[in-house]
């Protein structure tokens, strides 16, 4: 069931972005520990689970990042588990909220990337809502290319920076 909604959502996102969705050599899903380390802002709040009373807790930081291809906001199949984990948490805790922080790599102009980061947040938001999360639980923000986690000027770094971080509030 979740799968169907997932792919419906991915298709919608694809329709909005006609640019390429090449899946060549993206190694994000099993990125290095260093690359997965969230930024200071997100780490603090992601680790601190809200004082909810239910048994479903905030997913771990390693289960809170959705990666993207260059100039794409299409969700990739390997992001399914991250979305499922957060959907489970947020539907079990209807008062809990999450911030979806969109990020891009350094390529392209800063103003475009700010908008692209938001579009990526929106893609994750759609996927979560398709899985039953209320829109009111989600806040979309974008950092554009301003908050990279990897500072190199190559695909190894860029692939780590094209991401949405899901941060429990």
């Amino acid at each position, binding site marked *: 069931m979740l799968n169907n909604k997932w792919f419906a959502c991915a298709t919608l996102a694809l329709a909005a972005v006609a*640019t390429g969705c090449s899946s060549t050599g993206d190694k994000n899903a099993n990125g290095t520990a260093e690359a997965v380390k969230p930024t200071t802002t997100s780490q603090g709040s992601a680790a601190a689970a809200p004082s909810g009373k239910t048994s479903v807790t905030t997913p771990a930081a390693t289960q809170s990042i959705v990666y993207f291809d260059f100039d794409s906001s299409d969700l990739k199949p390997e992001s399914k588990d991250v979305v499922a984990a957060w959907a489970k948490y947020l539907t079990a805790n209807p008062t809990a909220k999450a911030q979806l922080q969109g990020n891009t790599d350094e390529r*392209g*102009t800063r*103003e*475009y990337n*700010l*908008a692209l980061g*938001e579009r990526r947040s*929106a893609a994750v938001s759609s996927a979560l809502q398709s899985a039953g999360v209320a829109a009111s639980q989600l806040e979309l923000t974008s950092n*554009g290319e301003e908050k990279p986690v990897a500072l190199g000027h190559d695909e190894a770094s860029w692939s780590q920076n094209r991401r949405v971080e899901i941060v429990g509030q």
Partner: protein
Amino acid sequence: MTKFSSILLVLLLIAGSARAELEISVSGGTIRAQPIAVVPFRQGPSEPADVAAIVAADLSRSGQFLSLARSDMKGFDPLPTSEAQVDYRTWRALGQEALVIGNVQALPGGGAKTVAELYDVFRTQKILTVEATATRPTEWRSMAHKVADQIYEKLTGTRGVFDTRIAYITSTQASGRRQFKLIWADADGENPREIARSFEPLLSPSWSPDGKRIAYVTFEGGRSKIIIQTPATGDYVTFLGEKGINSAPAWTPDGTRLVVTLSFQKNSDLYVIDLATRSRRRLTDSFAIDTAPTVSPDGRTVAFLSDRSGSAQVYTMSIDGGEARRLTFEGRRNEQPRFSPDGKTLALVNYDTSGYRIGLVDVATGVMRLVSSGPLDEGPSFAPNSAVVIYTRQGTAGAELATVSTDGSVRQRLRHTGDVREPAWAPYAKP
């Protein structure tokens, strides 16, 4: 220019620079630099500035002139400070084509008046007398730049931009955190003054047409906001802080409105905001990303980036609304358009197999020329004379600024100790 003269030039620039925050070098010109001798002006010792040294450094930095080093002026006793003392044959023997002499008269209260004269060494005649004044010690450098601007204009036919200012954003590590500063400095990198600092990103500085205010984007508090600030006083207002994105401020030429990107109604669209009433009008309403607006100098046209065709391209439309027309078709993507102050050219960021490069589009013909080598160039901003574009490039030690003359003949690199980017060349100061 030869390698030797480039080295000489760098030394000269360092010598003329006391508190420069940016290290500027001319990184290559395809034209022959004209030899010019700027003789030390007659002025008192230990005054606020060596006016002739600043003039000489300005002219050399343009890449179009090669100022004679003072160490090569030793044969003159005395060095000329009046027309009667000008010995054309000797300057010609030194290979000089132009000669500048001058007098600086210090005034009570720390001001000064400079009178300089420009001579054509081959035609053996005075071709220009320049006057410039300062009302306090901190204006001496500006006075020197005004002298250089007039000499430059006389010899090239193009208005100079030495007495102008550039805003840019630096990013440095400070006690383990990344700190961002919006700086405002003279065009030679001197006299840097801080407009804003934050541990959150700053971006998109944009000068008001009178050069008195600057709009920019801050992430202070974790979300984008548009600030309008008066650098001279430090006064600022948070102009826009809507839900979602608040970015890409662009002034209308009359200074009464800003065109901005807001996303509170679903995704990034352009809005025209009246500064006095804060009333807003939605300019674009597409499912695509619309951002990075720039307003033509006649105030009628907005050029902007949209990916409504599937990839980012530049479109134009009336500032009153209506249909958008696609302007760019070359390369895979085109982003961040900026009108030249004379309205004839649109600078943009073109993406193709060589990466991101600065392109110049002739507005009348639509023909694009690429003027930078990439691969990660962005952020073009025109000098107020429309003859030079400054932009951000990725250097070996991080982000740095670069300039290129619009004919591609002269290039500069401007380096900072940290990353420096997002340059915004201020308009000419209004008297």
